[in-house]
């Protein structure tokens, strides 16, 4: 068997280990879906009336792509928490002593987290449509927008993997995994127009890859011109995957349960 086939086979076995668990933990699934729905409702009904975005008649059409993006990004934290848990329980030691592909442990984990994230995403889209959100850009653009968001979230899974393999406990993985996602998602164009931010913060928000991803998805969902943002968003996601998968693989071969 060649290396690639091993990687695919082993990654699938690992992904299956996590995927089997998902339907058994209905509680987790319900709460994981309630949180984004709650965010959606809070922003639409609490802030919606007070926020006016130039170029958008309706704040919902501006906001929802931002919430979609944020939810997917937050979902990436599962990867780091899960790996830290495997590490702490000694499962990583066991896996490292098996004649399996090394990368498969993390690839399998990121893939199963992707599936879980997609589920949450679908639930959210349904709720968004019920509240009044519309894909005005057509089906192809909506699919492209979704693919961009999912890819970016998948890329951040690899960042979380590095974090999960670097910290010493699940609790640390939990806080280290979430803390940077607040500035990442709020200092961006997800909820407001960055041009109203203080002068020093604006360039940060503009350069934030999350802004690029959100802007691209928003433009595609709403049928507006995308410009080069989508290509930059794509480049960021691929760059993050390349850099962090290398780091994660290196961390993995050194990690121990001690």
């Amino acid at each position, binding site marked *: *068997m060649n290396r690639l086939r*091993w990687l695919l*086979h*082993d990654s699938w*076995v*690992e992904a*299956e*280990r996590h995927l*089997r*668990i998902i339907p*058994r*933990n209905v509680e987790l699934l319900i709460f994981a879906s309630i949180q984004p729905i709650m965010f959606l409702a809070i922003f639409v009904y609490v802030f919606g009336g007070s926020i006016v975005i130039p170029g958008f008649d309706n704040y919902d059409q501006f906001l929802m792509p931002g919430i979609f993006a944020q939810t997917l990004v937050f979902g990436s934290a599962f990867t780091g928490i899960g790996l830290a848990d495997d590490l702490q*329980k*000694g*499962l990583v*030691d*066991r*896996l*490292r*002593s*098996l*004649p*399996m592909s090394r990368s498969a442990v993390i690839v399998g984990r990121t893939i199963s987290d992707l599936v879980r994230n997609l589920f949450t995403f679908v639930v959210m889209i349904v709720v968004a449509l019920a509240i009044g959100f519309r894909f005005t850009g057509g089906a192809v653009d909506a699919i492209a927008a979704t693919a961009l968001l999912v890819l970016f979230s998948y890329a951040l899974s690899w960042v979380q993997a590095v974090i999960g393999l670097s910290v010493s406990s699940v609790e640390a993985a939990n806080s280290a995994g979430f803390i940077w996602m607040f500035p990442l998602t709020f200092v961006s164009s997800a909820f407001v127009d960055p041009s109203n931010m203080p002068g020093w913060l604006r360039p940060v928000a503009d350069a934030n890859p999350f802004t690029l991803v959100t802007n691209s998805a928003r433009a595609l969902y709403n049928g507006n011109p995308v410009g080069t943002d989508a290509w930059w968003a794509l480049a960021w996601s691929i760059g993050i995957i390349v850099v962090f998968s290398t780091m994660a693989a290196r961390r993995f071969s050194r990690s*121990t*349960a001690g």
Partner: protein
Amino acid sequence: MDGIVKTFGDTRALDGVDLAVPRGAVYGLLGPNGAGKTTSVRVLTTLLRPDAGTARIDGIDVAADPHAVRQRIGLTGQYAAVEERLTARENLGFVGRLFHLPRARVAARADELLERFDLADAADRVVKGFSGGMRRRLDIAMSLIAEPSVLFLDEPTTGLDPRSRLGMWDVIEELAADGTTVLLTTQYLEEADRLAEQIVVIDHGRVIAEGSPDELKQRIGGARLSVRIARPENQERAMSTLTPLCAGEVVSDDARTGFSAPIIAGDGVVPGVIRALDDAGVDVLDVEVRRPSLDDVFLVLTGRTTDAEEDAS
């Protein structure tokens, strides 16, 4: 293992360890916390690369061809490394498939192991509800799924209650009877004594003694006699009565009611001692012959007890 050295920062965790386990043997790697037992296992199971020296499993160098080594070993670490949200059968299944065994083979082997490790009734239950002993048994079963030529058991009974520990001992004895090559580490001398045919004592990253449990015990000589009497004023009379019966100096404790001395172990010592003391008019409370334990061996070899080391680390 040949001259294995592994350092972490300033500490030499392994300082030139040599170790050879013949096929089919059960070896015990015995030492206090921090002696280098786990590090040795981690080097042999490809989890750590040694800084110097070579280690081979079935003649295959662990550093040169870790993948081939991983196909021949089973590892049960200090933590029961099981996926607690899956069932016992699913746990065996996922490990079997990561060994790239055919599905049918994995299923058959899983049934066999579940039966053998007394987990058949719990096979389709989620591991979360398992007791510590059940988890460890499943853990060992997972290590055996691909019929490894060497099984590593790193402190297999640490953290188990006494009953589960006895159950685990039975399991390991059965493995030994089946001819599985086992290297087990333990800090319980009793455990090495019972399970291992050959014991390697390590301390501060070096092998300090090696031999069968009996050979190690012989190193510190024969048995000791302990006697306790009721009245301290009989101290001298007791000592003079005991001296001709013993093989060496009779030592008295501070309370002047307890005595101990080396004896040539044999039948009839205890009744002889009681009769002599009784004839001398000494009121005996208790007579005991204690054969040396591995704790005594450890004390002689290292100059300290295992407990003292544990407290210090």
